[in-house]
């Protein structure tokens, strides 16, 4: 793979001439802007960038990005993207999916693209609802969600996208939400990660699941409810008054009070993005007793799938020529001259 050439662009360069058709006030607008703001900062080349999506509100995303784009079919974007990446590893791929597309109909493909570690950024817009089909409950909807298909409230236990990703073998798991000013930083970290980088983006569906993330996403009191993780930094929130420590008896995380800023005394953990066990705990922290863990939860790269494929192909081809005539005549053959046959 060639080192990507940095290209100078502005946010405007990434806008298409297509009218954006999400509902007014949809969180997708904010995510679109965050991505369009991030790409110039990365020096990304529009000609080398491909947005690939499945089906759903989120999956309209490629039409609004002035780059290459492929709006595929429901749930299958990870499989299409895998083929694109294997055919041309130099392309910079952004996958756009949602909670229904990525975890319901396409859960299988999402699992496999993560465990194979195909180099791409995977943005899963989680709005805990099926928006495009008018509001049915989704695999991430909370228990008791009333929707056209569950008028009395749902009773399935919701899937947790980040936990699913980590459990599938993802080497990068990040979290953000639509209107967060920190979202571009998470996207940049995902882009810097070589391999499948999974980002769960909480997204407000203004029509069918309005303000469902307000508990932690609303600006008021956000400090107390959001834990923004930074590698090498203590896990502090509430303006540094509280932190996350390890309950060594129960092997669980716990919230501790920090007195006079002495977080060491309170045994607050220092975030290590390569610590998979703590990443699991951060992802599983129940919101309410705990703040919502956001930012880069886990980042520990290992060799990518496409690199292995390319290396294997090169190794298997070593010293061999692509001689079709020879290939066709391989194995046990015989020649016929006239009517007599002689083995060769």
């Amino acid at each position, binding site marked *: 793979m060639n080192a990507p050439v940095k290209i100078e662009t502005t946010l405007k360069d990434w806008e298409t001439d*297509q009218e954006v058709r999400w509902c007014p006030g949809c969180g997708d607008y904010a995510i679109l802007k965050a991505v369009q703001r991030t790409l110039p900062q990365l020096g990304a080349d*529009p*000609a*080398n960038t*491909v947005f690939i999506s499945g089906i759903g509100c989120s999956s309209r995303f*490629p*039409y609004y*990005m*002035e*780059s*290459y*784009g*492929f*709006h*595929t*079919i429901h749930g*299958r974007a990870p*499989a*299409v*993207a*895998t*083929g*694109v*990446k*294997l*055919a*041309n590893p*130099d*392309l910079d791929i952004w996958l756009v999916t949602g909670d229904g597309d990525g975890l319901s109909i396409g859960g*299988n*493909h999402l*699992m*496999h693209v993560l465990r194979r570690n195909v180099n791409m950024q995977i943005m899963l817009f989680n709005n805990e609802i099926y928006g495009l089909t008018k509001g049915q409950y989704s695999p991430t909807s909370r228990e008791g969600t009333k929707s056209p298909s569950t008028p009395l409230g749902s009773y399935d236990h919701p899937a947790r996208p980040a936990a699913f990703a980590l459990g599938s073998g993802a080497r990068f798991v990040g979290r953000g939400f639509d209107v967060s000013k920190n979202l571009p930083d998470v996207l940049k970290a995902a882009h810097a990660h070589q391999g499948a980088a999974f980002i769960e983006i909480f997204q407000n569906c203004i029509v069918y699941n309005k303000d469902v993330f307000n508990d932690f996403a609303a600006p008021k009191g956000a400090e107390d409810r959001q834990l923004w993780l930074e590698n090498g930094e203590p896990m502090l929130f509430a303006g540094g008054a509280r932190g996350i420590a390890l309950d060594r008896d129960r092997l669980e995380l716990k919230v501790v009070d920090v007195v006079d800023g002495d977080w060491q005394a309170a045994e607050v953990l220092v975030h290590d993005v390569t610590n998979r066990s703590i990443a699991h705990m951060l992802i599983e922290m129940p919101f309410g007793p705990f703040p919502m863990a956001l930012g880069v939860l886990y980042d520990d790269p290992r060799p990518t799938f496409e690199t292995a*494929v390319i290396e*294997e*192909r090169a190794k*298997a*081809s070593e010293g*061999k*020529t*692509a001689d*079709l*005539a020879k*290939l*066709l*005549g*391989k*194995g*046990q*053959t*015989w*020649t*016929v*001259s*006239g*009517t*007599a*046959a002689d*083995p*060769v």
Partner: protein
Amino acid sequence: MATQAADTPLEAENPDAVVVRFAGDSGDGMQLTGGQFTLSTALAGNDLATFPDFPAEIRAPQGTLFGVSAFQINFGSRQINTAGDAPDVLVAMNPAALKVNLAALKPGGLIIADTGEFTKRNLDKAKYESNPLEDGSLAKYDVLAFDISALTIEAVKPFGLGNKDALRSKNMWTLGLALWMFDRPREPLHEWLRAKFKTKPDIANANIAALDAGHAYGETAELSGPLKQVHVAPVASAPGLYRTITGAEAVSLGLVAGAQLAELPMFFGGYPITPASAILHHLTRLKEFGVTTFQAEDEIAAVCAAIGASYAGQLGVTSSSGPGIALKTEAIGLGIMTELPLVIVNSQRGGPSTGLPTKTEQSDLYQAVYGRNGDAPMPVIAARSPSDAFDCAIEACRIAVQYMTPVMLLTDGYIANAAEPWKVPDPASYEKFPVEFLTERNDGDRLLPYKRDVKGARPWIKPGTPGLLHRIGGIEKHELTGNIDYSPDNHQRMTDARKAKVEGIAVPDQDVALGESTGKLAVVGWGSTYGPIHQAVGRARRKGLDVSHIHVRHIWPLPANLGALLKGFDKILLPEMNTGQFKTVLRDQFLVDAEPLTKTSGQPFQIAELEEAIDKYFDDIPGNEGGEVPANEQQLPVSESGHDDGSYPDAPFHGDDAALPGEGSDTGAVNQ
């Protein structure tokens, strides 16, 4: 032994064709025996056709009726198109093999049986109440029964193997006898065994000893029994280099050739399924030809990844069998909608649902031609024989890249596994069809990703190309810009354009495979029925009947002249291994009264049953033409079960040293 005056080629001085069936337990190595006998036969210059037939179970319990594995070969000094109707020789390695296969044997045919396996226990397992070798029930056949097991143990004694290991060479002993019987040289087998067991010379020598002992036994036994040497002269073939080839190999090689002719790297997305997996296995060994293989998480991902690769500028290919094709269907629609090249190979098997994984059928024709949501036209090509699959695969690649469309190539379980001699073609004799990607805007200053060329194809634009940024998708798009467009007029025009593009594909005119281009009866076929139809029509013509054989390769779009050609015949008989699917297409497209002759027993047509159906048109018996062919007892053995998606553990894979059968259960019978 009672010998009736019977019409078997074994009685003849120099028969022009002989059918031999090797049958045994799936642990006996019959597929390997058959495969090696096939090579020897090919080397002797006979034309041949084979039919491996094995159970769906990976390791069926030993000695049981459903664990019987068989390999039939028809070879001769004349043109051979089928694996033969009824065997002249049946090699039965145990009672179950005899029981399952006896009904197929010609009256007066020769049974070679291993008495060492006809024990009380094995007879019970085969549900024999008494020993058929002793109770006179085989009176209408020639029987040569002797203790192959003991003879094998004796032959390999010098190599210090235990009885269990020694018995694994039984198939080599049997092969040695068969080589003697048909006067085949042993040297190629010696060489093959030495190469196969390069690191285990003792095992190689034990197998060689068994092979030689079987051969020597033939020479001795000739003096006393019904066994005698039979000479089948070489067939007159066009001069050139030959090899044997299975359909799965031919498809793989054809795809590689097609990608080279298109000057593209190939991406193959596959998922294990019987009987299509062999293509994945074969292609993954051809990386030096720019082939990337990807075993996906499921059938859907396999086709989607292939579509992704095509989008990125490679030749995307996927392969499966009916149930897997069903899963791929939505993605094939995406390929049709986004107008990207894609080759889909369907190795058909008995259906519906899991159906008959290891048995053959032609019942996915509706699926191929019609089986998608929306108006989703797609070209369909059907291979008629293993070697024909090579040319068909190239043709599929050509159409896919020239018309920017998915193309389906139909083969079936019979074609995939059967072997036949193949005159190795010169790749230089095929016309190249190099792909040109769009590199500049195609409408002045504008890019129009859906602007069509004279063929109706849109340009192929690789992501990564500067200045040609655009978006595509499965949603209806503007006829030029490719932007989302649901407007009524646009959808009408796009539907029309997709249809016109596929219908306008240049397909060669239909020829007549045998006979005149007008007459009383045309027997029309497609796919793997070619062999039996060709032979049956040939026989009918020799009897003076006015009948022709037409065999259609291009199922969709159909050749432009086909309608007129069919209308030149009084009657049309259409034999197919389904309930009449191509018949429906022909009736619909040409309003011709094609009469179906259908068979869905999981077994190929026999020449005799087609001959009979043809004869009825000339009998003046009213209302007696066509109809359904009853499942025929003279067919190859049908395994008794097949409860799940079975596999071919022992499909012969000729010509590729690294892929010689050696991992499957049946093949374990070579000592190693």
